[in-house]
């Protein structure tokens, strides 16, 4: 007999099989994740979780005996029956029980399982059809930065600071008066050309002295060597606030709200990757605006006209009260179907231009439309024309019309491109 301890063996033997399974069930999993995210609050988006997919798509068919037919079965526990009794059928009874003969691979309606946070995010981002580059950016975990921090006299050869070492060596050589090679060469040339015996002896002595000195004072001494020093330094606390503005008047359908929610989620993921601390402010508006919680924001109906400036005014007030632009990175995303009272346009434009856009990192306007209709074919709405005008003035504003989930990403790309350009510029 032998005993083998397998506990230290690498676990996760099934990891590859699990990935194959997820790939296989991709369409179902994606739909499940979509449904799961629809029901989730924005800050919870990054958690993994249990999802359930219909068993139909990933079943393993076998020839199985079906229900019905004549069945003879033996059961235990007879107390009251005698031969020839007839018992009326109950619903769901009448055979079927013995088909679970081999190991209970019974078909369930839904197949529930856990997704890890990474898997969940992967599928969520996949669903938005983000290109890989963007996905990598979104998923990259903020490293607590390793920073250069001066030089040290010890370190690994890989971090040898060559320039600094050479500079110190040079100053030491100068300070200690190490003869330069050209002095030596000059003396030797003179010696070769010299006829005078006394002079020659003097020169030879001079050369010997210099050579001795060169040997005593090395070109590079161990004390010259410097290494680049690195230090783990936490990044300075960065915080951001994200304003979600949405028109909730009757003309906004569930589909439109879902599109808006997806965009907010994406922005939230992006911000949490960039900033240590992200707050969300929900402002909904009809003809007046109010700050609400997420539930109310997405699910409570409201009626009334549409006055965009009310929301912008609310945002300005909240910034002034709670989020000093010096301390906070301010992001805003506005979703609307584009309606606005014509008389309100100028007010909104002034608010944006003078008060809001100067303090915002980014302001995205998302004009949502019904599914299936080409958004670019829609006539420009009043709000759209207004924002286009502002953009033409060079204001930092991203505008986009979307009718389907996959179109959300382009809005986002603007954000990335702007960041890239900034980084390249700095």
């Amino acid at each position: 007999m032998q005993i083998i301890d397998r506990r230290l063996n690498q676990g996760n033997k099934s990891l590859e099989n699990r990935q194959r399974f997820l790939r296989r069930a991709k369409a179902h999993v994606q739909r499940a994740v979509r449904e799961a995210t629809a029901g989730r609050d924005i800050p919870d988006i990054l958690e993994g979780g249990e999802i359930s997919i219909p068993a139909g798509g990933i079943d393993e068919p076998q020839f199985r005996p079906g229900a019905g037919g004549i069945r003879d079965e033996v059961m235990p526990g007879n107390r009251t029956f005698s031969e020839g009794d007839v018992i009326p059928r109950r619903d769901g009874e009448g055979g079927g029980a013995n088909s679970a003969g081999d190991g209970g691979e019974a078909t369930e309606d839904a197949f529930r399982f856990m997704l890890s946070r990474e898997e969940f995010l992967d599928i969520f981002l996949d669903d938005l059809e983000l290109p890989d580059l963007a996905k990598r950016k979104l998923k990259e975990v903020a490293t607590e930065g390793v920073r250069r921090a001066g030089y040290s006299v010890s370190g690994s050869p890989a971090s040898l600071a060559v320039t600094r070492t050479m500079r110190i060596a040079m100053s030491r050589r100068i300070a200690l008066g190490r003869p330069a090679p050209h002095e030596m060469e000059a003396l030797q040339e003179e010696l070769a050309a010299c006829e005078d015996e006394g002079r020659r002896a003097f020169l030879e002595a001079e050369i010997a002295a210099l050579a001795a000195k060169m040997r005593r004072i090395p070109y590079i001494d161990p004390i010259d060597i410097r290494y680049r020093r690195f230090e783990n330094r936490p990044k300075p606390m960065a915080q951001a606030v994200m304003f979600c503005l949405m028109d909730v008047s009757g003309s906004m359908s569930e589909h439109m709200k879902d599109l808006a929610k997806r965009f907010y989620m994406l922005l939230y993921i992006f911000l949490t990757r960039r900033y240590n601390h992200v707050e969300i402010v929900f402002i909904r508006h009809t003809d007046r605006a109010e700050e609400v919680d997420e539930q109310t924001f997405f699910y409570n109906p409201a009626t009334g006209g549409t006055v965009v400036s009310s929301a912008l005014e609310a945002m300005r007030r909240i910034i002034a009260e709670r989020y000093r632009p010096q301390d906070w990175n301010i992001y805003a995303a506005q979703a609307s179907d584009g309606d606005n009272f014509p008389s309100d346009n100028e007010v909104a434009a002034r608010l944006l231009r003078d008060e809001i856009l100067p303090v915002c990192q980014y302001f995205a306007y998302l004009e949502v439309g019904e599914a299936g209709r080409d958004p670019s074919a829609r006539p420009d709405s009043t709000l759209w024309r207004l924002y286009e005008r502002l953009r033409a003035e060079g204001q930092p504003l991203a505008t986009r019309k979307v009718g389907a989930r996959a179109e959300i990403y382009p809005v986002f790309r603007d954000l990335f491109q702007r960041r890239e350009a900034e980084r390249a510029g700095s």
Partner: protein
Amino acid sequence: MTTARMAPLYEGAEWDFATLQRIHDACADIAVSELGLDLYPNQIEVITAEQMLDAYSSTGMPLFYKHWSFGKHFTQHEAVYRRGLQGLAYEIVINSSPCISFLMEENTATMQALVIAHACMGHNHFFKNNYLFRQWTNAEGILDYLSFARNYVARCEERYGQARVERTLDAAHALMGQGVHRYPGKKKPDLRDEERRERERRAYDEQNFNDLWRTVPGSDTSPAPSGISAERKRALLGLPQENILYFLEKSAPRLEPWQREILRMVRQIAQYFYPQRQTKVMNEGTATYVHYRIMNILHERGGISDGNFMEFLQSHTNVIFQPAYDDPRFSGFNPYALGFAMMRDIERIVTTPEEEDRQWFPEIAGTGDAMAVLRDIWANYRDESFIGQFLSPHLMRQMRMFQIHDDPGVSEGIRIDAIQNERGYRRIRRALARSHDVGWIDPNIEVADVDLTGDRRLILHHHVVNGILLTEADARRVLQHLANLWSYDVILREIDSDGTVLKEKSCSPA
């Protein structure tokens, strides 16, 4: 029986490897010298819960080729386990030589003792001695063969792409239930030899392949098709053939060599598991009976303390719990309960028979040596024949068995056909035996006909018994897989015992 006292094997719940060794040696000593068991060498592997889940998902085998369905099972078990709906099995045992048993690290010392007595002694003996396993499985070769299979599938994936291999495996898995020979062939399977032969076959094919042969003008492509009768052609193809995978491997016109090889592998593995399905009650009954005997003897001799023995009894009682038919927990007979009860009952018949037992079991009643009788039974029966011969009236009364007859044609309800009385014993016994006969439970499907020189349409027959048809949706999907492998149309006819076709489905390759 000797009552030599022994030192306690362990204290409390903690154990280490030395403890396992002591427990194993004590169990093996009792198993061999007192119960007369004949064992493969044991190999005990200690694993974690996660590794147990891994093992679950690939039908308990420690290594298997990669396939998404195993990932699905893993995910499923994990979800159930995480929600705490179900604990894990205490052990998994593999029919191999050496006999490998996986023990969970979470088990207490008593549980380890129970598991060692159950798996390393009971199952081990059964695997080594039962005629089905001896005839059908090759315990020495299985692990090597699985490793070969895994590498082969991986190589195929590299060469032909994961998607194609996956499609082939999906189809093969769908037909796995129809991939076993039910009657012994000419020789014992030797899986090591199997692996070597596969290599030789391929090498030979490659050496002798010459594309020029294709261009040589043939004198005559089909030699006198009318010369051979249809009957003779069917015989040449081995029709009717119930092993559909075998038939495809040998006769499917458009499969590539590697696909045939994969079908063959799936078939071999299905065949390896086939005896286990036929001996559930006996296998578990044997193991449960053996652990019960060993643990009792250990306790009598002081190897296991009273407190620990109580712990054992509790687990044991849970394992052999049989809810009655009207209990919400009822889901058919519990093979552990039925098997254990029958083994104990046979022990009783052999040692202290009553008059009734002498009438029913004249060959074994009162012969005195229970172990000799049981060993003989364990070696030479499977569930169906075991129940058919050794279920005693005493046990039927004790378990209060009754038989129902459910005919959908009768609208009044379900008739009670037999109860535990003189008139009912034989009928109950026959019905219960039959419900443990895989040949009876599994749908009887066979390849009936094909015209390879004609339209190559493959015709399957399902011989319907008692009007039980196949589940519609599943059958259609399996048929699709089959059509994809066959590459031509496939027809499935469900035929009643009097020859009327109840249902017909056809499917074209996608």
